[in-house]
């Protein structure tokens, strides 16, 4: 089952790569160059215009990963503004939560649903590409204020022959972090965009309560894995 899940995960990730760079880049051979529909082509002379459009999308990675067994995640909406088909200011807003009850451990971790925000910018390295497919690098600044609790904590002192159960309630924390991002977006059909990105995250500041070190931070993910993924589907709003 786990292998099956990993294969599905892999196929989902590779889909935009397979689509990326499809015509109009196709050149040579006997086939004539494919003509793109006009709505899928950036008029290169238009790139001098500042405002080129707006893209709105949602992240599918976390919901799918949760269906496949990931015990944390959430939902995210992102808005990108296309400036000169080169700079893309981004706002990502979402909610995240977590629930972890490992079989071989002594606790249940519940991360309450909390809001997070990420703002930043993408830079389109392939802005000369006449289509809306693009490869980008970017950055994000993220922040979240959240709460969680750890319950059913079973403690044992073998020498003193004690077994004791306790809870750690009302843990409130906040975090601010920075992300470096690379990603790909492809225009599937008439402005329907599909893409993925990977981000490496650096914690800038976090406040933690005395009784715990948070395991999951909404928008950041788990602290033991400072890498985030998105797999987005969205729509490029016509000008």
């Amino acid at each position, binding site marked *: 089952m786990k292998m099956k899940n990993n294969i599905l995960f892999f196929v989902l990730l590779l889909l935009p790569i397979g689509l990326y760079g499809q015509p109009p880049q196709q050149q040579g051979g006997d086939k004539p160059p494919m003509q793109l529909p006009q709505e899928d082509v950036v008029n290169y002379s238009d790139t001098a215009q500042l405002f080129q459009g707006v893209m709105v999308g949602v992240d599918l990675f976390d919901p799918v990963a949760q269906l496949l067994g990931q015990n944390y995640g959430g939902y995210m909406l992102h808005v990108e503004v296309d400036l000169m088909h080169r700079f893309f200011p981004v706002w990502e807003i979402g909610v995240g939560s977590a629930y972890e009850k490992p079989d071989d451990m002594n606790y249940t971790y519940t991360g309450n649903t909390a809001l997070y925000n990420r703002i930043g910018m993408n830079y389109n390295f392939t802005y000369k590409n006449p289509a809306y497919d693009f*490869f980008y690098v970017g950055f994000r600044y993220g922040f979240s204020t959240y709460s969680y609790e750890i319950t059913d904590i079973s403690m044992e*002192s073998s*020498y003193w*022959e004690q077994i004791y159960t*306790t809870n750690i309630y009302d843990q409130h924390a906040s975090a601010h972090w920075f992300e470096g991002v690379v990603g*790909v977006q492809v225009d599937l059909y008439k402005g329907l965009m599909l893409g993925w990105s990977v981000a490496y995250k650096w914690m800038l500041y976090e406040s933690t309560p005395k009784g*715990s070190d948070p395991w999951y931070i909404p928008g950041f993910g788990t602290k033991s894995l400072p890498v985030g993924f998105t797999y987005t589907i969205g729509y490029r709003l016509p000008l």
Partner: protein
Amino acid sequence: MGEVLKWLSLGVVALLLLVRCGDSACLDNRSSTPEVALYASGTSTAISIDSISVYGIGQVSGTPLVDSVASLSSFDMPFPIITTDAETDTVSYVIAYNFVDSLYAPYYNDTITFVYSCYPFFDSAECGAMYNYEIVDYSYTTHSFLDYMEVVQSAVTNESAEHIRLYYEVEDEDEE
């Protein structure tokens, strides 16, 4: 350009899968236990002593924590969990020096006593939850070989550290 980007993208995905499959291990102790080390009086020289036994006073079955171990230089000394609403509790351990038959001459035992508080702490998904302790006060007897005791770190967490030092007079071999 398109081919380069495809391979770059594939490389990133492969990296992601590797990262996704990796789990960070818990490197620290799962429980927070004070560590006791033996030193020569007035120095920072670690020593080891033969045939020491250590007993917790009030331990239900009378099981020794350390049972006449040869060449003992350090040991972990667990504190009981405070299961009442009290902020602090007290624990005492007896150190018996078996090489002087002190089991039959209790006067030659030493007793070390600690007043402490404790609180539950969640460390990480890998390490789980544990109790951390804070040594508030301490006392000791010097009936036998113990010269004096120091608490060098009062906060007891799951990070490996030396918390308590027991100092003993050591004969200087050069003087013999």
